């Protein structure tokens, strides 16, 4: 057994144990912390499996966004542990049987596929030059399968609209008008924020030829927005309803507009004219970054806005 394999096994075992303990932790706060660690280990898996784009996304999402959301939500809804009702033998065994059956069947099927080849990967690498970007993952995301990515930006937009619907509001209401963060937190944020914005910008810029891109950049920026929210000033709260909507919608519509340009000029939706492909993609990425970051901040800050709850009774 090589050292690399030992590392893989340790990682997988750790991942499984942490996942189980996170779900079943008696205290939900522990569950949330363990879930953050789960995200960390998953990011290590992506590093190990040569998927830096995913590791970047996982690091930003798991640590910065989902983690903060969970910790914050658990404070509100994490009621003290209630003993689960004593289950009958069947009630205990049946879920295990179902879960183990599904997992074993899926893993078994996947194991048989070890030596299959002939995936799309080679084709993508061969044609990446036609796409207008150099990084294959970005080429798949924004060019070859740009249609998926456009719809994915739509999913985030829908989530934002739906959260506004859950809250029955059209603007973000700051949850507490004034809360005093300790000076050290504010001071640290004063350094972390510009660093975060720089790193976000760097990831956006580097995405065309190296791992990174709009989503990773947006996730880092959104994490910074969440940091600011936590310090008592939700960054979107000062916006009017129309401006907020414009921010949320601009990524999806810019993508759509770029697609229509292709439709008019090249007679194919989402075909970027060869001469302008590079900068069209840049414009799309910029707009998408803004929208995704805004949506993520809204999903965080909108979810925790208690003023609306109190108004609703």
């Amino acid at each position, binding site marked *: 057994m090589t050292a690399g394999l030992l590392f893989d096994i340790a990682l997988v075992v750790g991942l499984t144990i942490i996942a189980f303990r996170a779900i079943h932790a*008696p*205290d939900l*706060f*522990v569950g949330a912390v363990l879930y953050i660690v789960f995200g960390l280990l998953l990011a290590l898996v992506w590093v190990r499996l040569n998927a830096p784009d995913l590791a970047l996304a996982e690091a930003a999402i798991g640590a910065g966004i989902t983690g903060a959301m969970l910790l914050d939500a658990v404070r509100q809804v994490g009621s003290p*542990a209630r003993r689960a009702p004593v289950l009958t033998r069947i009630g205990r065994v049946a879920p295990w049987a179902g879960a183990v059956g599904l997992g074993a069947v899926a893993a078994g099927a996947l194991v048989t596929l070890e030596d299959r080849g002939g995936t799309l990967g080679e084709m993508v690498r061969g044609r990446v030059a036609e796409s207008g970007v150099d990084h294959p993952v970005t080429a798949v995301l924004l060019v070859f399968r740009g249609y998926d990515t456009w719809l994915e930006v739509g999913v985030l937009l829908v989530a934002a609209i739906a959260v506004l619907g859950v809250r029955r509001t059209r603007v973000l209401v700051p949850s507490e008008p004034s809360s005093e963060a*300790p000076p*050290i*937190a504010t001071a*640290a944020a004063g*350094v*972390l924020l510009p*660093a975060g914005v720089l790193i976000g910008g760097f990831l956006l810029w580097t995405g065309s030829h190296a791992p990174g891109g709009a989503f990773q950049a947006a996730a880092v920026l959104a994490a910074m927005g969440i940091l600011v929210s936590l310090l008592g000033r939700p960054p979107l709260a000062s916006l009017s309803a129309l401006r907020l909507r414009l921010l949320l919608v601009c990524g999806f519509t810019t993508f759509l507009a770029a697609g229509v340009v292709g439709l008019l000029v090249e007679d194919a939706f989402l075909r970027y004219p060869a001469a302008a492909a590079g900068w069209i993609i840049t414009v799309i990425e910029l707009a998408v970054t803004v929208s995704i970051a805004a949506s993520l901040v809204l999903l965080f800050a909108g979810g925790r806005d208690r003023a609306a709850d109190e108004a609703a009774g």
Partner: protein
Amino acid sequence: MMDPRDVLTVLCVLLGAFFFFAGTLGVLRFPDAITRLHAVTKADNLGLGLVVLGLALQAASLLAVLKLLLIWAIALLASATSCFLVADSALRGQGERESAG
């Protein structure tokens, strides 16, 4: 014969790993939150610093070295801040909320 640069890297990384080990040991064995915090901070700053130093010796470009140093600088800042916040909340009693584990 090993390149002296490689020897230095090995030494730095090993020492860094030792600090991580010591930090974890401290977190597991020290009696209360504040002393454990102390252990974590040492491990954070020194362990990561040494690993960064060791790897910087191997780096191919100046840019890579700068990036590594930036990582360490941010880690120092983040760790100092979070250490203070955790300690602060522990001392104020919030963090002391005993929770079933």
